[in-house]
């Protein structure tokens, strides 16, 4: 039921995209899914716990789960005062009628117990109150974890992912991390450090010490490796960072500088720009063989490459037409027929309707959209556009909104914002309607966020 609703919502969004033609789009579109994106009515009562210690853990877990679910804007968590049934148990069917009266669609019941060896046992079930059936969680009837307290947050995120996935039909993204640039100090002497935290802002830690500037970290889509750009050795170059081992390594020493790195879809290569003698072009390097292939050869600045999920196309920024715009090319460099009818190796997909500048394109993991930064009228926006250049929608605007990155399920975009002139950068997430805009808490100023794949 919930699944059908979301599919309907997405279908409605798709239809809206198709019906919108290019010229009339230079404004915030907040109405596309309004009315369709009704929230799922979910009851998530406090978990059962038989000791004060277990009570504490249980409250933390359910608090994290509620926060995850609320952050999506997709769930209406029903207030506990309205609950009729109070004697819930994970091993007994709930009185469904009591929950239908308050229009609960899904009811989650959990319990926490501290085992004799000190480990905690967390059990959880999700019920569909209409069908009176248990909802499957990652294909199973109920979930149970026996683990140490240090995994508490992850258990909560995994359970919230199960609820999200069970109700929306999409993969959850709560058990993930965000890598970003932690900034401090005055603008003229800014310290920029590589940092990582959980998706909800917890467990933030620095990965570099700030002696040199690092920029633009991006996760591998397949493992816990990051590629980023660093001034570590004076000359800016692309590096890899293995989070598990804490080791960093250069992609290789190249003439000039290498920058704007991003993993290929299969995680086996890194796309990047190399600039030498005043010209930036896009390259791809296969990580095992370290074979480097040039993908663009143009006197313009060609940068910010991002590959489509099927690996066949690459979107990048180029100012070959006079201003920074987005271009799409085939990954093998073969000519294509552009929307304008021309045959070319790269087709421009933005900037036909106004004087805006477009940059930092990132292909959605679903393949259907490309997120970008747009600079127009003295403001910066985060927006999305179809790969053929149709259906542009702006999702945000501020003095500076920059650097979108997708959640692994392609439903949420994280980016950084300087709200006013002189304001430090902070992280925001926004959904594809542009309505669910939320600040992500970080210990200090933060920029260049990138999302990890699911940790499992």
């Amino acid at each position, binding site marked *: 039921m919930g699944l059908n609703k979301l599919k309907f919502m997405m279908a409605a969004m798709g239809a809206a995209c198709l019906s919108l033609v290019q010229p009339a789009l230079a404004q915030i579109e907040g109405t596309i899914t309004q009315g369709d994106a009704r929230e799922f009515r979910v009851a998530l009562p406090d978990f059962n716990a038989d000791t004060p210690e277990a009570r504490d853990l249980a409250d933390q877990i359910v608090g994290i789960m509620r926060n995850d679910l609320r952050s999506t804007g997709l769930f209406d968590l029903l207030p506990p005062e309205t609950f009729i049934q109070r004697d819930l148990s994970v091993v007994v069917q709930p009185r469904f009628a009591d929950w239908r009266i308050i229009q609960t669609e899904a009811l989650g019941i959990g319990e926490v117990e501290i085992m004799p060896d000190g480990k905690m046992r967390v059990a959880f079930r999700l019920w569909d109150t209409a069908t009176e059936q248990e909802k499957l969680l990652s294909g199973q009837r109920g979930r149970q974890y026996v683990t140490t307290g240090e995994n508490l947050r992850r258990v909560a995120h995994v359970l919230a992912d199960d609820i999200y996935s069970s109700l929306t039909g999409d993969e959850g993204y709560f058990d993930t991390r965000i890598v970003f640039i932690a900034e401090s100090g005055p603008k003229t002497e800014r310290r920029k450090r590589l940092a990582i935290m959980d998706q909800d802002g917890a467990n933030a830690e620095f990965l570099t010490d700030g002696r040199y500037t690092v920029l633009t970290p991006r996760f591998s889509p397949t493992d816990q490796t990051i590629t980023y750009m660093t001034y570590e050795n004076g*000359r800016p170059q692309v590096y890899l960072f293995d989070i598990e081992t804490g080791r960093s390594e250069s992609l290789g020493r190249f003439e000039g500088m290498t920058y704007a790195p991003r993993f290929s879809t299969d995680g086996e290569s890194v796309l990047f*720009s190399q600039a030498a003698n005043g010209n930036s072009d896009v390259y791809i390097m296969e990580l095992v063989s370290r074979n480097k292939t040039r993908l663009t050869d143009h006197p313009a600045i060609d940068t910010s490459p991002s590959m489509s999920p099927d690996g066949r196309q690459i979107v990048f920024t180029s100012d070959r037409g006079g201003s920074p715009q987005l271009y799409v090319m085939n990954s093998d460099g073969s000519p294509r027929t552009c929307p304008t009818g021309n045959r070319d190796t790269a087709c421009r997909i933005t900037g036909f309707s106004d004087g805006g500048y477009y940059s*930092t394109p990132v292909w959605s993991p679903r393949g259907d959209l490309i997120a970008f930064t747009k600079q127009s009228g003295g403001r910066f926006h985060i927006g999305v556009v179809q790969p053929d250049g149709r259906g542009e929608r702006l999702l945000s605007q501020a003095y500076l909104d920059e650097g979108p990155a997708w959640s692994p399920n392609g439903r949420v975009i994280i980016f950084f914002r300087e709200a006013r002139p002189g304001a430090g950068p902070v992280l925001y997430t926004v959904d594809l309607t542009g309505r669910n805009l939320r600040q992500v808490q970080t210990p200090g100023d933060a920029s260049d966020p990138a999302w990890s794949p699911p940790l499992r």
Partner: protein
Amino acid sequence: MKNKSLYWVTVAGLALALGACASKPPVQEEVATAPPPPATPSARPTPTPSAPPTSQVVGPAPGTVQDFIVNVGDRVYFDTDAYNLDSRDMATLDRQVAWLKAYPNVTIIVAGNCDERGTREYNLGLGERRANSVKDYLVSQGISSARVETISYGKERPIDGRSTPEAWEQNRNSQSQIIDGAVG
């Protein structure tokens, strides 16, 4: 505007080089608008005149990094999204060429910088272009390319931390920095 900004940078550099207290803001405007001080007779004794201030006007020693910054000019400034050099930039670069020819052991790195009104990655490319257009000019005037490195800082190293058009103007620049071979 451009001339004015360059002038202030030079003045600031000069003040610094002469050992003046650079952190003190200039007070001329205040003096001009404030009412004249009352002409009350001073109760303090007249101090003995100190040594004539001729030593204060000696500039940086020739061939030093300060000489290059103060007397030659280490930065040229660009228009928005542009990397072309105008006649004023070329005049500065011509002085750099003459100086580099006078001190043939000097090697430099040209750093290209951008204002904050662009995205990070594109600005890294633009900064590289700006640095390279300075290098190209120096090389075209007879400086060996082996003596000139380039680097881009994109929008990461503003010299004016404010978010104003005047600051952006300052921050769109290429700075020639001496790596090695200067006197002192």
